[in-house]
Structure formats: C-alpha cells, structure tokens
C-alpha cells in the first residue's frame, strides 16, 4: 500500500519543522520569532494568491497532527461535535485569539517603553505560568525582543496543545477546523472571490 509511487515533495516533511521549532525555543526563546513565518506565509498566500495553499500543502502543524494521529494511531478518529466547526465558534475563537495576540503585543510594548520588565516565563492556555528562565540569558537585542519571544512561544505552544487534545479525542486534524490562521485565510479567500 505505502509503496505506490507517489512523488514526494520537500514541503510534505514540514511537520519535522514544527517539532524543531519547539525544541529551539526551549533552549533559546529568541527562536520563537521564527514562528512568525507560519503567521505571515499563509496570509501572503491568501491575500496575494487568493488560496489556502499553505494550509493545503505546507503547514507543519497540520501535518504533525496527521502523522501523530493517523500514522502513529494517536487519534480516536471520531467525528467532532458539529459546533466545533461551526461558523460562530470558528470566528469567535479567531476573535479571542487575536485579542490574546494583541495583549501579548501590548506586554511587549510595556517592556519596550520601560513600563514593564522582562518576565522569563511562558503562559499556557492563557492561564498557567511556567518558568522558562533557562531559555534566555541576555543577548545583544533589547529586552522587548525576548519578551515577544516568550509571549509568542506561549501562543504557539498553547495552540499546539489544544490541537493535540482535539486530535486525540476526535479526528486527526480537528484543530484545522477552528485554527485561527485557517479561519482567517479562508475568510480572506471568500472575500476575494466575492470581489470577482
């Protein structure tokens, strides 16, 4: 079965990148900035190309859920409740996510302006503080750069954990039904199509 001749592309292995990303950020939080690629690329595809090529072919996170869920059988593969992929939940979660992103940027600004100090911790599920001080011992960048790193890494880790939980409970890529990037890019594509 697995031996049928399908041409493999380099971007089918980007799930490895999504693991490497978290490993790098564990040792040095500045690597968290690399996650911005996963934010900007899908938007460029959607805004310029009017497609979801990123989601459809090169999102390492989606691939990771498939590799763990299907290939390694860590998913029940059960249908998720319909509300999880309903429009109100998807857009609601997008708004929540963007609000949290904004809060994170504001905290970065506080450190930038000197009103706040760098906190070497990550926050899981927007609630639980986890000390992470080993991942930063100063650099030639100002403190706010590291603060953004801690905040962004928290966001990436939290969303991956949520994705893993729904992967186990439901279908492999259930996260993709309410992933903020997925919702945003599909929304942009739909808007672009109405223009034509």
């Amino acid at each position, binding site marked *: 079965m697995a031996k049928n001749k399908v041409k493999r592309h380099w971007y089918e292995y980007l799930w490895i990148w999504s693991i490497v990303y978290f490993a790098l950020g564990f040792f040095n939080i500045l690597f968290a900035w690399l996650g911005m690629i996963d934010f900007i690329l899908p938007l460029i595809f959607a805004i310029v190309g009017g497609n979801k090529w990123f*989601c459809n072919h090169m999102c390492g996170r989606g691939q990771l859920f498939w590799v763990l869920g299907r290939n390694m059988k860590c998913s029940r593969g059960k*249908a998720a409740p319909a509300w999880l*992929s309903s429009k109100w939940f998807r857009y609601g979660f997008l708004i929540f996510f963007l609000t949290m992103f904004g809060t994170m940027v504001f905290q970065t600004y506080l450190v930038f302006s000197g009103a706040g100090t760098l906190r070497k911790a990550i926050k899981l599920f927007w609630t639980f503080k986890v000390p992470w001080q080993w991942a930063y011992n100063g650099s030639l960048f100002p403190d706010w750069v590291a603060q953004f790193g801690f905040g962004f890494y928290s966001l990436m880790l939290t969303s991956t954990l949520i994705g893993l939980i729904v992967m186990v409970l439901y279908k492999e890529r259930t996260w993709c039904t309410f992933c903020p990037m997925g919702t945003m890019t599909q929304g942009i594509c739909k808007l*672009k199509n109405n223009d034509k």
Partner: protein
Amino acid sequence: MVKKKASPDKDRCVACGVCALQCPRKAINIYRGCYAVVELEKCVGCGICSKACPANAITINEINQEVANG
C-alpha cells in the same frame, strides 16, 4: 446507473485540504481557498476523504451517473 460519489458541503467545509491530500484518485480540489470540489468523473466513492475530513463535511451519496455527467 447509480454510483457512489463524494459530496462535500460548501457551508461546512473549512478548506483545510485534508480530503484532497487523502483522495487516492486526486479527485478533489480546494476551489480558490474557499471549499472542496469533487471531480465526479474521477471519484470512485471510496469514502476515504469523508473519513479524513475533520469538519465532517463530506457525505457519500448514491447518484445517478447520467445526471452527474450532464
């Protein structure tokens, strides 16, 4: 003749592309990042896409071939 074909629900589809990746016949395309579209001539109604779809947006329907080919 009645045949089984995949039929994605435009409204429920989140355009993730999982179905397109899984379809052994390459019968599915994600139309302009909006929703999945099945090429009925290629689809053999195997249901692999439907099982993979995280939004449960695909049903396998029995349809009349003459009508489908228009």
